[in-house]
């Protein structure tokens, strides 16, 4: 992890009418840092992730990102095309349901290639060989390159989604329950893969999960959310082993083992 801050979030708030999605969330994220956001359903963690990744306009607050070129940008002031370009190049999003991040009617190789073409790759041979490389990175057999994701298992689809997300070499990846809904054995493989890729490419990750064991294994730091507010944040193992806030204590004691 570098000590260099790449994302600065101040007082970020999202209201749905009178209802609070998330309120006054502030934090900084460093280069190559993995931050887990945990909390129960309805705690606001997905709302927060969607606001941070530009998929939902916040009601208030500020969000700045330091690009690969070293310049700070006010993310909320970006035009729609600028925001879309950012989320195709330096940012990426991994959805819980791979169907939200993949094109199910396009081949596995095409899914990865399409993301590369969106940032200007044109040479067919290069695209195809790079796509094949990415499938290898996520342990999808080469002979599945031309198959559609509809023919893939849940775990393989999720690995394909990760390959597609990483194909443009993003620096910041948003992940929404990336191991949710998978069998435990498939989860373990995916966790190992995500951790390897995060280290190898020095990715900064904001990971939303309700699974505290996933947070423990992947995240450097974690934030606990309840009713739209961050109630506690700190070093992952410290928050899990010595939670200070009543709700964090309840959350940690409610699970059998992390």
């Amino acid at each position, binding site marked *: *992890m570098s000590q260099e801050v790449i994302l600065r979030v101040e007082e970020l708030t999202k209201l749905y009418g009178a209802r609070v999605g998330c309120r006054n969330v502030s934090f900084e994220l460093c280069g190559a840092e993995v931050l887990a956001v945990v909390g129960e359903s309805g705690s606001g963690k997905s709302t927060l992730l969607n606001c941070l990744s530009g998929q939902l306009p916040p009601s208030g607050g500020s969000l700045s990102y330091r690009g690969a070129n070293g310049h700070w940008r006010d993310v909320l002031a970006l035009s729609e095309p600028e925001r879309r370009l950012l989320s195709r190049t330096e940012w990426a999003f991994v959805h819980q349901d791979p169907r939200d991040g993949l094109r199910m009617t396009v081949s596995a190789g095409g899914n990865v290639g399409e993301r590369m073409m969106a940032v200007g790759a044109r040479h067919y041979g290069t695209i195809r060989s790079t796509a094949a490389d990415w499938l290898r990175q996520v342990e999808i057999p080469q002979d599945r390159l031309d198959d559609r994701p509809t023919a893939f298992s849940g775990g393989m689809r999720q690995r394909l989604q990760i390959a597609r997300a990483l194909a443009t070499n993003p620096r910041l990846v948003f992940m929404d329950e990336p191991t949710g809904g998978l069998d435990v054995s498939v989860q373990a493989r995916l*966790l190992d893969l995500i951790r390897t890729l995060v280290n190898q490419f020095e990715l900064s990750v904001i990971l939303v999960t309700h699974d505290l064991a996933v947070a423990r294994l992947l995240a450097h730091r974690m934030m606990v959310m309840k009713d739209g507010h961050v109630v506690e944040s700190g070093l992952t193992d410290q928050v899990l082993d010595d939670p200070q806030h009543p709700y964090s204590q309840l959350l940690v004691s409610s699970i059998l083992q992390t």
Partner: protein
Amino acid sequence: MSMDQGPRNDRPPLIEVEGLGKTFTLYNQNDAVIPVMQNASLRVAAGEAVALTGESGAGKSSLMRMLYGNYRAQTGSIRIRHREHWGDVASAEPHAILDLRRETLGYVSQFLRVIPRVSTLDVVSEPLVRLGVEPTAAQEKARELLTRLRIPQTLWPLSPLTFSGGEQQRVNIARGFAHRFPCLLLDEPTASLDKLNRETVLDMIEEAKADGVAVIGIFHDAEARRRVCDREIDVSSFAVGRTAA
């Protein structure tokens, strides 16, 4: 071995704990307040090993966890010599604690926590890889340690989660000794080992001391404690209600 509080003064101190206090407040159990310790102070010099002693429940493991930043201290400071300056675990930001843990402060706990699919060789070499050591060199070091700790080579490609308690503990020790941490915390490192492996681990601790490592350990095994530790600190002297020693 003596009971005095000060480190040998011919070596520079690497760990300085001052006025450390800890209380657990359990909000979901009728707001129970459990005082753990107050005014805990200790210093450990380079090349010195200090044993934490005291009854079960006196707070030995809690103190160890505070030193590693795993438990939060309410008062006091935990200064660790880190590169050319001092870091305070009790007040440092998470990234600074991670930085300390990566390079300076090692911890061999009683539990092995790893991702299920990762091989033993990778588990042991990981601390070196994280420091930027070439993976082949890191694996070479891991092989050397696993061999020394008598983990059969046939087990190296497997996840240690399927191993016996004693094997897991040796994998944990190999991982803790892969990088030469200047400060090392050992929680019952010989607890479930046979005689031969126990001797090996004690040898490894002595070698670390000879290299100038500052060691704090919990050893129920009195003989092991006498062999490797220069001093004992009775954690029950930090119990709440007592005046600090």
